[in-house]
């Protein structure tokens, strides 16, 4: 027997059936019936953000910290268009989120009604799938389908656009088991023949390297466990993309550190010099590969990805394996063990000798200062003082983000949320709120730059309202640091609009929001200031005034190969030669 209810009630009912406990949202005319239903129940907590972009990033943070889909509810028109950046961010980083938008009533669609926008048209390229629901009878099944598609296969954002008359009208509620899902069942088991061929290559490889990415995290904690087992049992070195940090512990002895444009010297040179590259859940992004023609020229490459379109998109794969990382890792381990757990031990030992030489370069060393706080030093201290906490880190985008990836250590998956693919400044503050909502007692720190942080600082209002003790660790160099770095190295030191001449007083700003502000500009005071931040039971805005002209190294200049990386200021001379100075 079917249950009859209004569309608005169906929304809440379907969310409860999907196990949703939190919705991030902002009300408006076209979603008032749904907000009325939210008011009359106690199963789902609604977090009122200050801007719809904040709602989507908060849902992303929630999703990445829990592995569950994040849910957003916003109104039509500007509510939906403000969500677009977050949707694109989630699409690029494969984060499961379900966004529900209000829409003008069906009979007014196309009339340029108040707060009308072609939401499904606008969001079609930035969602995995979206729907405009025109009949109340279809609403519940569409929401269930949305959750299915968002979370199955390569995760991603989905959007359901719900006209106001559909919310008011009464229809049949379709329960989750009866909703249409069988048309979308992505393949999760990898091809055994190819996996066996890869195992043979693993047995023979002289210079192997694991190159892992966000796919390991998305596959769930079990996949990280299997990855650790495989790495530790084969004894092969492992590096990871920005998205994959934490899948293998930073303290693990096989860990080379992050690779890519600002990755570690040993990680990038291992990628360049390897004879077997095992890509697990990464996608050969341009920040990783550098110049394609010279990318790891002498290696066989395996690529494990759940999305068939990722394989052979950028780099030819010798062992293409379509499947879920967890399932494929299980098969690799099973087959490798059944064949006797063999590796080319002697050669791999020599390979580690080579890696030790690269490590000895100590590429993350930097010249510290007694007068000013170096950003690297700030992060080293933050790491030392927080690593034993139940800690989650979010970031904004820029130099601070790369330094955080270099100097903070991640021991577990789902502890690191950063905007990788889209590079969204303004991501970190709302993401930290989403993480803190999911883990109320954990230490959640947003490592930020002051410019990024200002982009979504309104969300401090949300943090204060819901007593979310997020720590905003702003490394303030009064510059758009990464833009400034590129202008210095590649544009003749012409610093076009890369600094702000009018920054707020962050301590007063904190007080205005009703939270705590801390300012620190002396390396000697830094530890005490960080401890004060950690001890405060509430949101903190920490204004850490750092060296203004520090550059982020190592760096592979765009279009260069992995073995052409710059290690420090001295190396930058070669970048801007006579020909380069014409360019810059």
């Amino acid at each position, binding site marked *: 027997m079917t249950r009859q209810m209004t569309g608005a009630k169906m929304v809440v009912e379907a969310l409860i059936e999907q196990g949703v406990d939190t919705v991030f949202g902002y009300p408006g005319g076209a979603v008032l019936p749904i907000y009325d239903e939210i008011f009359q129940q106690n199963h789902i907590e609604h977090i009122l953000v200050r801007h719809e972009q904040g709602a989507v990033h908060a849902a992303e943070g929630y999703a990445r910290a829990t592995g569950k889909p994040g849910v957003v509810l916003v109104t039509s028109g500007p509510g939906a268009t403000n969500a677009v950046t977050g949707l694109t961010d989630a699409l690029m980083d494969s984060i499961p989120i379900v966004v529900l938008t209000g829409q003008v009533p069906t009979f007014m669609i196309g009339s340029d009604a108040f707060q009308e926008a072609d939401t499904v048209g606008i969001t*079609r390229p930035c969602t995995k799938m979206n729907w405009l629901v025109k009949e109340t009878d279809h609403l519940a099944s569409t929401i269930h389908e949305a959750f299915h598609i968002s979370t199955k296969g390569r995760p991603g954002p989905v959007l359901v656009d719900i006209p106001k008359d559909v919310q008011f009208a009464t229809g049949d509620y379709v329960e989750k088991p009866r909703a249409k899902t069988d048309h979308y069942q992505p393949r999760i088991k990898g091809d055994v023949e190819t996996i066996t061929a890869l195992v043979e290559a693993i047995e023979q490889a002289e210079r192997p390297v694991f190159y892992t990415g966000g796919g390991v995290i998305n596959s769930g904690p079990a996949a990280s466990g299997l990855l650790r087992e495989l790495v530790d049992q084969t004894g092969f070195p492992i590096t990871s993309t920005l998205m994959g940090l934490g899948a293998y512990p930073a303290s693990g002895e096989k860990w080379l550190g992050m690779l890519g444009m600002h990755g570690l010297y040993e990680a990038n040179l291992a990628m360049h010099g390897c004879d077997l590259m095992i890509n697990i859940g990464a996608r050969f992004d341009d920040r990783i590969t550098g110049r394609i023609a010279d990318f790891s020229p002498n290696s066989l490459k395996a690529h494990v990805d759940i999305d068939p379109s990722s394989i052979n998109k950028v780099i030819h794969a010798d062992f293409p394996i379509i499947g879920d990382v967890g399932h494929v890792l299980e098969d690799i381990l099973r087959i490798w063990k059944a064949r006797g757990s063999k590796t080319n031990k002697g050669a791999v030992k020599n390979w580690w000798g080579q890696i030790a030489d690269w490590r000895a370069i100590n590429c993350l060393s930097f010249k510290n200062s007694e007068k000013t706080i170096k950003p690297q030093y700030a992060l080293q201290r933050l790491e030392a003082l927080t690593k034993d906490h139940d800690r989650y880190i979010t970031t904004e985008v820029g130099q601070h983000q790369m330094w955080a990836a270099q100097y903070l250590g991640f021991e577990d998956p789902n502890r690191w949320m950063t905007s990788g693919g889209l590079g969204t400044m303004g991501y970190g503050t709302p993401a930290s709120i989403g993480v803190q909502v999911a883990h109320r007692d954990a230490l959640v720190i947003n490592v930020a730059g002051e410019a990024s942080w200002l982009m979504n600082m309104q969300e401090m209002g949300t943090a204060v309202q819901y007593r979310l003790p997020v720590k905003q660790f702003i490394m303030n160099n009064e510059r758009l640091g990464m833009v400034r770095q590129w202008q210095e190295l590649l544009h003749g030191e012409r610093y076009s609009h890369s600094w702000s001449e009018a920054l707020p007083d962050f301590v007063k700003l904190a007080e205005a929001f009703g939270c705590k502000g801390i300012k620190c500009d002396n390396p000697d005071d830094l530890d005490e200031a960080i401890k004060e931040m950690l001890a405060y039971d509430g949101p903190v805005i920490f204004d850490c005034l750092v060296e203004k002209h520090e550059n982020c190294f190592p760096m592979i200049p*765009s279009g260069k190969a992995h073995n052409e990386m710059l290690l420090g200021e001295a190396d930058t001379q070669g970048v801007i030669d006579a020909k380069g100075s014409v360019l810059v």
Partner: protein
Amino acid sequence: MSPLKIDKGSSSHSAYDLRSHMSDAIETHTLAVLVQNEAGVLARVIGLFSGRGYNIESLTVAEVDHQGHRSRITIVTSGTPQVIHQIKMQLDRMVPVHEVHDLTVEGPHVSRELALFKVQGKGDHRVEALRTAEIFRANVVDSTLESFVFEITGTPEKIEAFADLMRPLGLLEVARTGVAAISRGT
């Protein structure tokens, strides 16, 4: 060339590698895409092509299974082998796409297009147009004292050839459906 005299392909100044990695020859492929016939599905497919910079040389779409709500989209596209491969992969992972067939590689197939030609002329031109139409097995579907509308079906090449012959005979307008294609045999 940009104002900075940066060679196309140089990328030391840019975040992106601008050079083309594959210099492979451009191939033309005919794809048959079976999709769920739902609102926006065509926009989704076309958006993929425009958003990722792929070519569409011809596109036809119509519902082919009313009860199953299936539509068939026939796309003629061109690109390097790597691009064609990407197009197929990207189409295949779209949620409302059920099947993608590359008819060009899957075996022999039949491609047909329908076109309407409006030809204006008197005297010898009119007679010649009619005679040529007969050779091409085109039907006259409209006639006035000074014009014909011919209906012709065939491969795109045949239609091109017919257009070439009609042009000097007073060709006014052409309407083409685009290619529909299906594999030979079972």
